[in-house]
């Protein structure tokens, strides 16, 4: 028999305490007492002091001056898609399987493939309607080749819808790739750091 005690305990922690709310007074004298208590408790002046204290502190602002300052974002943040290149050959890692197109719940991915000269499938066109994309991350999660990932670039604003579709902007540019600066795994759908340790031999090797 399973013990559900821990599951039924809704308290956040052991020192969780309930705030006791006073009963609404009915007697005239009790009401008067409550008014007096509230009037002379000084809570209003505590409030005044708190805001004044915050005002006179130096360097107390929590404002991020956004275009000039930026907060670091999580490595798992799902911003603009990236399509990776294979480290060995520099070809696009996408094999044109079309899983991302199938799983996309916003129907924003369109993938067009053909048979290449060597009889292999090659990607002819790959568009993501970024204006329609909801950045759920399913495409990155389903991709068997880790070809499509989510990057960190969230400042993708444009006046033209046409700017939100082209694959050429998503694929790692060749110069960055050649400089060895393609960051392969930090985005969404990434392999874990100890991925190599988790690799098991395929049955053929036994």
């Amino acid at each position, binding site marked *: 028999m399973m013990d559900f005690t821990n599951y039924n305990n809704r308290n956040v922690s052991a020192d969780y305490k309930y705030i006791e709310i006073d009963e609404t007074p009915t007697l005239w004298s009790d009401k008067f007492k409550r008014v007096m208590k509230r009037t002379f408790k000084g809570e209003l002046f505590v*409030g*005044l002091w708190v*805001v004044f204290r*915050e005002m006179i502190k130096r360097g107390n602002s*929590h*404002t991020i001056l956004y275009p000039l300052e930026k907060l670091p974002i999580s490595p798992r943040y799902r911003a603009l898609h990236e399509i990776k290149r294979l480290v060995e050959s520099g070809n696009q890692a996408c094999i044109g399987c079309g899983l991302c197109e199938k799983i996309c719940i916003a129907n924003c991915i369109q993938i067009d493939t053909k048979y290449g000269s060597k009889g292999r499938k090659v990607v002819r066109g790959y568009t993501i309607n970024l204006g329609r994309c909801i950045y759920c991350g399913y495409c990155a999660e389903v991709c068997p080749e880790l070809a499509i990932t989510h990057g960190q670039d969230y400042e993708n604003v444009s006046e033209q819808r046409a700017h939100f579709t082209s694959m050429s902007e998503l694929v790692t540019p060749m110069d960055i790739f050649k400089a060895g600066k393609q960051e392969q795994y930090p985005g969404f759908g990434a392999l874990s750091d100890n991925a190599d340790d988790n690799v098991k031999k395929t049955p053929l090797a036994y």
Partner: protein
Amino acid sequence: MEVSYIIETIIKIIVILTVFSALAGITTYFERKVLAFMQRRLGPTHVGPVGLLQVAADGIKLFTKEDIVPQNAVKPIFMIAPVIAAASAFIAMAAVPFLPEFTIPFTDYVVRPIVSDINVGVLFVMGVMATGMYAPLLAGMASNNKWSLLGAARTVIQILSFEVITGLSLIAPLMMVGSLSLIDINNYQDGFWLVVFQPVAFVMFMIAGYAETNRTPFDLLEHEAEIITGYATEYSGIRWGLFAIGEYANMFTVAFVTALVFLGGFNDLWFIPGGIAIILKVIAIIFFFMWVRAAWPHVRPDQIMWLCWKVLMPLALVNILITGLVIMAI
């Protein structure tokens, strides 16, 4: 009536209008800054040095915006309501002495910085400021918008509440002075402040002043969390700007009247000359307006009625009674 007197009065009026219109804008800047620092923000920073030109940017924006009158609004009343707000705020200043008398340098021409020294100054100021409540009332009724209508209803609640207190809280100090003229009240306080003898009246007058200017603990009319902007929901551009100018001008009037009646007015304070003393007092009161706005929550409409009628009015009557007894005994 002399020509020079008329010219002098017109110049005074123009000076007061321009100075307080400008001050309304500048005060919005300082209010935003003070509120921001109290809430750990920065406030306006980008336009001009430390955001000082934000006032100009906002002004240009307000004054060049399209003037929109909603389709089913009562057009003439909708259009005249903001004018009432601004006009009543400035008319109330007619009986307020802003500074002590001074002579224009290099001449022996004495200027009294008051437009009209009428012998019922306080009564006039309070009456005209209360008339200003017609502006949100009419604006809300004419806007054809449910939020505006609720704002108008709350205006009535507010005026019914604070109007009791303004009068009754002022009676006690006025009994001591024996005059309604703000100059007489000021001259009476030579060397001491009336707030020392009338602390209860002072607190009540401040509460009534906050309610009268729709400032935060009592800004039921706007109360953006509940009724969008209340009476001003349908207003934009220059008409909304007139409401804002009216509100800030009212703040200054209340600050000046409080300083004159309770805080020693423009009498010299130790080594500080009277003219600077009253400006410092007014700045302190205006700062307190902003401070309270940053710190305190709003009250509900029923709470303000409860507070004014059930708590402050009996308190004011007791205050008057005790003051009367003491005056008779002395």
